[in-house]
C-alpha cells in the first residue's frame, strides 16, 4: 500500500507505525506502558483523526461528535449481547449505523455554517445524550449503562457452538481473545490503517476540495462545485471514524454509558485536534495522546508521589511547593490542561505540530525541509 504515497508521506506512515507498535516500550519510562491506557491512546487517536477530516479540512466545527462515539459503543455492546463476542460484526454494525446517523445529522446541520452549524450539532448531541440517559432506557439501560449479562442470547456464538465461559465472556477476534496487550495491538493496527486512510483522503482531489471549502466556500460554489455534498461526505467519513472509535471502546471494555455522548466528550475531541494542530495529519493523534496521558497520569498523582519528587528540597520550601503543585494534579489535573492550552494558543496557535515544525526549522535550517506535515490552514 506504500507505493501509492509520496515519499515524505511514506516515511511519515512508516515512522508512525513503528512508534505506535513500539508504544508499550517507548511509553514505559513515562508510566504509560500498560494496555488499558495504550488502548485509549489508539482509540482516541482514531476519533481525533476522523474529527480532523471534518474540522481540519473543511473548517466545520462539529460540537456533537461524541454522539457517534456513543452510538458505536451501544451498537457494539448489543452485537456482543445478541450476536457474537467476535468483534468483527460489532465493528461492521457499529460503523454502518453511525454512518446512517451521521448522514441524517449532517444533512440537517450542514444547512447552516459557522456558529449555527456548531449549535445544531450540539443540539443533536444533547438530544442523543438525553435519549440514552432516560428516554430509551430499554435500549441503553439508562444511567447504569449497557453491560453484558450471563444470560445474553449471543445467537451466532451458540449456533457455531462457541464454548461458554464460566463468567462473562471476553471479546475475541475469531477466537483470539482481545484482553490486555492483544487488545492494544488490535487497536494499534486499526489506528495505523485509519491514519493511512486519512493521508490518502488528504492528498486526493476530494481532500483538495475539502480544503477549498474551508478556504473560500463562495468561490468554490462559483467554480461549479456542490460544496454541501463535499461537506456532508466529510461529515459522514468523520462520523464513521468516531463510530469505529466507539466500537473499540466497547471491544476493550464491553460497557456503554450515556456519559460517552456527553457534550464534554464532544468538546474533548475539539481540544485534542486544536492542541495537536488543526488540519495537520499527525497533530490530532498527538493531541489525543497528550490529553489522555494527562487525564490518566496526572490525575493519579497524590501527595505521597509529590513528596517523593520534591523530597530533596528543604522542608520550608517543600511544603508550599507541594501545596501549589498539588492543585494541578490529582483531581485538579484539568487545571494543568488549561494552562497548557493557554500557553499553546497564545504562543503556538498552530498546536504541537507548529511547535515541532518551527523547532525543527530552528535546529536544522536546511532549505530542503518543507515540513512534511505542513498542510495549509494550520494556523
Amino acid at each position, binding site marked *: 500500500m506504500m507505493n501509492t504515497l509520496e515519499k515524505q508521506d511514506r516515511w511519515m506512515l512508516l515512522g508512525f507505525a513503528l512508534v505506535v507498535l513500539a508504544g508499550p516500550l517507548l511509553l514505559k519510562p513515562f508510566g504509560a506502558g500498560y494496555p488499558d491506557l495504550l488502548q485509549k491512546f489508539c482509540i482516541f487517536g482514531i476519533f481525533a483523526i476522523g474529527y480532523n477530516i471534518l474540522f481540519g479540512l473543511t473548517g466545520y466545527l462539529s460540537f456533537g461528535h461524541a454522539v457517534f462515539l456513543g452510538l458505536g459503543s451501544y451498537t457494539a455492546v448489543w452485537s456482543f449481547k445478541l450476536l457474537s463476542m467476535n468483534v468483527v460484526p460489532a465493528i461492521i454494525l457499529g460503523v454502518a449505523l453511525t454512518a446512517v446517523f451521521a448522514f441524517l445529522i449532517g444533512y440537517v446541520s450542514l444547512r447552516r455554517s459557522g456558529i449555527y452549524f456548531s449549535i445544531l450539532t450540539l443540539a443533536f448531541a444533547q438530544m442523543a445524550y438525553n435519549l440514552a440517559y432516560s428516554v430509551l432506557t430499554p435500549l441503553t439501560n439508562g444511567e447504569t449503562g449497557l453491560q453484558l449479562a450471563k444470560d445474553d442470547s449471543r445467537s451466532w456464538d451458540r449456533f457455531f457452538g462457541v464454548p461458554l465461559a464460566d463468567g462473562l465472556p471476553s471479546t475475541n477476534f475469531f477466537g483470539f481473545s482481545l484482553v490486555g496487550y492483544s487488545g492494544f495491538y488490535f487497536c494499534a493496527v486499526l489506528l495505523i490503517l485509519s491514519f493511512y486512510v486519512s493521508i490518502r483522503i488528504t492528498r486526493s*482531489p476530494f*481532500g483538495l476540495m475539502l480544503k477549498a471549502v474551508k478556504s473560500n466556500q463562495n*468561490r468554490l460554489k462559483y*467554480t*461549479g*462545485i456542490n*460544496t454541501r455534498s463535499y461537506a456532508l*461526505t466529510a461529515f459522514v467519513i468523520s462520523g464513521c471514524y468516531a463510530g469505529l472509535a466507539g466500537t473499540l471502546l466497547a471491544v476493550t471494555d464491553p460497557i456503554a454509558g450515556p456519559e460517552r455522548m456527553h457534550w464534554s466528550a464532544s468538546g474533548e475531541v475539539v481540544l485534542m485536534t486544536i492542541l495537536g494542530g488543526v488540519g495537520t495529519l499527525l497533530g490530532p493523534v498527538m493531541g489525543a495522546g497528550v490529553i489522555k496521558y494527562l487525564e490518566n497520569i496526572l490525575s493519579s498523582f497524590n501527595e505521597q508521589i509529590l513528596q517523593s519528587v520534591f523530597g530533596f528540597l528543604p522542608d520550608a520550601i517543600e511544603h508550599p511547593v507541594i501545596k501549589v503543585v498539588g492543585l494541578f494534579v490529582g483531581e485538579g489535573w484539568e487545571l494543568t490542561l488549561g494552562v497548557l492550552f493557554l500557553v499553546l494558543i497564545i504562543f503556538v496557535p498552530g498546536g504541537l505540530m507548529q511547535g515541532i515544525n518551527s523547532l525543527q526549522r530552528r535546529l536544522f535550517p536546511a532549505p530542503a525541509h518543507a515540513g512534511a506535515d505542513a498542510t*495549509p490552514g494550520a494556523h
Partner: protein
Amino acid sequence: MAALEVSGLKKSFGGLKALNDVNLTVQFGTVHAIIGPNGAGKSTLLNAFVGRLIPDAGSVVFDGISLVGLPPHQINQAGVVRVFQTPEIFGELTLLDNVLIPAFSHRDGEFELNGWSRAAQQASVHEAAKHMLEDVGLYGKRNMVANSLSRGDKRRLELAMCLAQEPKLLLLDEPTAGMSRADTNSTIDLLQRLGDGKVTKIIIEHDMHVVFSLAEKISVMAQGAIIAEGAPEAIKTDPRVQEAYLGGAHL
C-alpha cells in the same frame, strides 16, 4: 448566433428598481462590454446571471439552458464562469492548488468521490493547470500561498482559475480596477489572446481604454435599464450616452 439571451429581467430592492426590464442579446464568441455610471445595475445584472440573486421576473437563457433558479454551481457547470470585482481566490492554498480546483471541477463535475486517488498524479489536470499559470505569468510562483500575492497578481490568478474551467461564457466584473497602466495593458493583451473567438466574454468596465480596446459591441446601462447599444464607434458619438454616462463631455 446568440449565446446569451436576456429578456424582461426585473429586480427590485424595496422601492429601488435595480433591474428595470433589461433585454440583452450577446452573440457567440464576441466580447460584449456593459458600461454605465455607478449604481446603474451592472453588477446586479451579473449576479442574476450566475445565480447569486434570483430576479423577480424575466428570463436568462444561455446556450438553450434557462439559468434563472439554478444554483450557482450548476450555472457554472453549464459553462458560465465569473471573475469577481474583488478577487475571490483560495487564499490559504498554493497557486497551483488554486488552479487545480477549477481544473478538477471541469473534469469531474460538481461532485466526485475520488478520495482514494492522488491529486498529485493526475497528469492531464496538472498539465492544464500548469498551462493556465504560464499563460498569466504566475507559474514561477506556483508553490506560493495565494494570499501573499499582490492585488494585481490575485486578479491574474483568478482569471487563470476561471479559464482553467474552459468556460463558454466568461463574465468579467471590472477586471482591471485598481491596476497600474502596465498591468492593465497586459491584462487587455491576455483577454484578447484567450479563448480565441470560442469564448464569449461579457465585460463590465469603467476604464474606457479597456472597453474600446476589447469590445466588439457595447451596451450602456443607466438606472437599471439598457439605454443604448451598438458598435464602439456608434456608442462614442451617441448623444444619449454622453448625456447619461459622460455628463455631456466628449470622448
